[in-house]
């Protein structure tokens, strides 16, 4: 087992103070804490600032196309379900360009963990609105402010009976690590962890201070199997933003339902039938 700080000596492309930095540091601790064998770990990402995370740690990496982390991860998991497949990508990648795949992989309940760095803005392309930007958020492109309502990933996931739905905040590393570990230890299929992440350069509204004033851990007695309560929590966004394990649903994973995958991963039974 490797140490909990496998940082590559590499030139990180993120701004000083970027919300991705605590996510990266916490991720490395969570991998260690959850006892994940890094040689069996595949990090999948699309395109965006968050999607660069796999390059800054040690793992197998599939850094694919914008929006397509989920279908690639699905193919990897079906080919070798012994691998721990984790997506680390952003809100534009997962909720915008890749939104359709999110819906359908929740339906599949593929055993992939999706850590979505949600900073409500596009960083890589320098400051345009994201699918989760609040209405009225002005940018160089949305000059009169965002006119659309924000995408609610948690509510969508709960409606589609996602097997694990949680939210955390990059500014609370202890909570974030607990959520990451819980997602990594979840064996019941697709896990969505939405991580609220300040962007210090392009989002002057949803700052560390803004989130800190609102982020509220869910009551300890919340039953994540209570779908109605979970949906209420997912729809709560404003003065109070609930974080924690919001919803769980038990059903068979996608990969458990194919006869050829019953005894061994597809990849290991290639040589003979």
């Amino acid at each position, binding site marked *: 087992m490797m140490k909990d700080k496998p940082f590559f000596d*590499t030139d990180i492309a993120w701004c000083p103070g970027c919300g991705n930095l605590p996510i990266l540091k916490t991720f490395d601790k969570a991998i260690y804490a959850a006892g994940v064998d*890094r*040689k*069996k770990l*595949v990090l*999948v990402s699309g*395109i965006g600032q968050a999607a*660069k995370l*796999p*390059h800054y740690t*040690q*793992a*197998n*990496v*599939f*850094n*694919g*196309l914008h*929006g*397509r982390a*989920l*279908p*690639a*991860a*699905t*193919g*990897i*998991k*079906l*080919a*070798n379900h*012994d*691998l721990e497949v984790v997506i680390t990508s952003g809100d534009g990648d997962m909720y915008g360009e890749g939104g*359709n*795949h999110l*819906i*359908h992989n929740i339906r599949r309940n593929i055993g992939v963990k999706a850590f979505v760095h949600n900073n409500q803005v596009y960083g890589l392309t320098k400051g345009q609105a994201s699918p989760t930007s609040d209405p009225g958020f002005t940018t160089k492109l949305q000059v009169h402010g965002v006119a659309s309502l924000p995408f609610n990933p948690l509510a969508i996931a709960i409606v589609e009976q996602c097997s694990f739905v949680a939210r955390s905040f990059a500014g609370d590393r202890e909570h974030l690590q607990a959520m990451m570990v819980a997602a990594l230890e979840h064996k019941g299929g697709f896990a969505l962890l939405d991580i609220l992440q300040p962007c210090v350069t392009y989002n002057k509204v949803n700052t560390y201070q803004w989130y800190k004033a609102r982020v509220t851990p869910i009551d300890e007695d919340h039953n994540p199997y209570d779908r109605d309560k979970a949906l209420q929590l997912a729809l709560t966004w404003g003065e109070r933003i609930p974080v924690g394990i919001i919803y769980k649903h038990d059903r068979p994973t996608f990969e458990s339902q*194919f*006869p*050829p*995958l019953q005894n061994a991963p*597809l*990849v290991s*039974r*290639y*040589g*003979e*039938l």
Partner: protein
Amino acid sequence: MDLTIRIAGAAGQGVETTGDLLVEVFADQGIHCLSTQTYMSRIRGGVNSYDVRISDREIFSGRERADMLIALNEKTLNWFSEKLTEDGIALYSGADKGADQSKVIAIDLEKVATEVGGSAIMANIVAAGAIFSIVGHDIGSLEDHIRSHFQHKGKGIVNANIACARKGAELVGEHAGRLNAPIHGDAPTGICSGNEAVGLAAATAGIKFATGYPMTPSTGVLTYLANAADKYGLVVEQAEDEIAAINMICGATYAGVPAMTTTSGGGFALMVEGISLAGMLELPIFVFLGQRPGPATGLPTRTAQQDLLFAVHAGHGEFPRAVFAPGTPQQCYDLTRHGIEIAHKHQSPVILISDQFLADVRKNCPGLDDTYRPVDRHIVENPPEDYLRYAVTESGLSPRALPGSSAFVVLDSDEHDEDGHITDHIPTRVKMQDKRMRKYAGLLEDLIRPQWYGPEDAGHVLVTWGSAYGPCREAVDYLVHTDESIAMLHFAQLWPLDGAAIADMIGDRHVTVVECNQTGQLGRLLRQVGALADFALMGKYDGLPFTADEIIRRIQ
């Protein structure tokens, strides 16, 4: 002896069932047969047709005119009667409307079926009985087929079907034996369609994961694989869209599982970014592209060869790929296996182009090998700790390891260094792009050269590709007995090409490019690689396949 039987009716009237039955019974007797289908994009109604051509020699093309028309309704009788040969005969399912009885036999097939104790769905068996009688076949072979196919449904069903067949044979009266047809032959008794051949070859070559979004005419391959999945231990997934379909197989091939996706032009358009991804990540994906006429949704159930240049050029940026286009079901089998091998050997995307005509064509095939013979994936089993997925080599091929092994395997769609990590260092970019493109040398070494057919000293050559093989070949067979000095050059591999070698083969001959499109895409591609300068074009873009008859007519 050469005979074409055309069954025509509305969708849902059993056109395909009747056609399939005829093909199977004729093939059982070692008779060469070939069937082609045309159908409309609808579940009920419209005009569908199914041609069964039988011969005493191997056949590769449909015919324009039929010797016998089975018209399951009045509309198809009117529609197809003028496409009968001079001595041809029509069997019309319905009441006698006073047509010339030497040309049209009226039998209400459904009524007859119920009268002899069967049900309306046995109308096709009445038709088959009538057909067998008209072509002078003993209906014993039809009865044997009925016994073996309906045995599991019980004696009552078998007897009712046999009664239908006998009644049909009886009702043609004096027309019995009117048409000449081969009785027995030594053709292979197995029958295979283009799409079945692709599916079987993929399953036996070790495809373990197949994805697709249903789209005519490619769906048959995915359906075949779904039904073969438990036998060959593979997973088939209907993706939410074609973008997911191709990215899924990119993921699966990264993890070490040979994978393919199936689509048609519109879906392929959505996959194009994924083709480029496979080029950049050097993934051995296999894409089946079943063409139909565009632009856009076009004619969904018709045929075309309009996506050649699209496939050869699909994907932003520059990267190696191979493109194949079989001409027969046998070639569908051979090139599918070859394509999957090439993808793995050269770590590059491979596209196999078919079309509706070839997808649906059914023909005698010598027993296609159905044993599992997985292709070599060219994988490094125990990579060292300092393994580099994209190590620069002379051949351009870097040792390929899998995630989950003893080393990290890192892939990035961004330009990357040998370790797979993102870079925008300019010299590294050039080094890596050169490395990828060097794989073309290996692809060219494994090139399948175009096939010359006909006299070597012919002054005129029909240059063609893919499914136009059969019609062109038969046209050459006919024309060599006329004043024409003609041969065929058929391309089953469309990319990469060896322009100089092709130019040598063609020499100073007159070239007519024969392809199912309007702009001569193969001709333009050959010009691009310096294989030829000028060419005449025999194009076709009405949504129907070429026949040898049409090619001969247009040449003469």
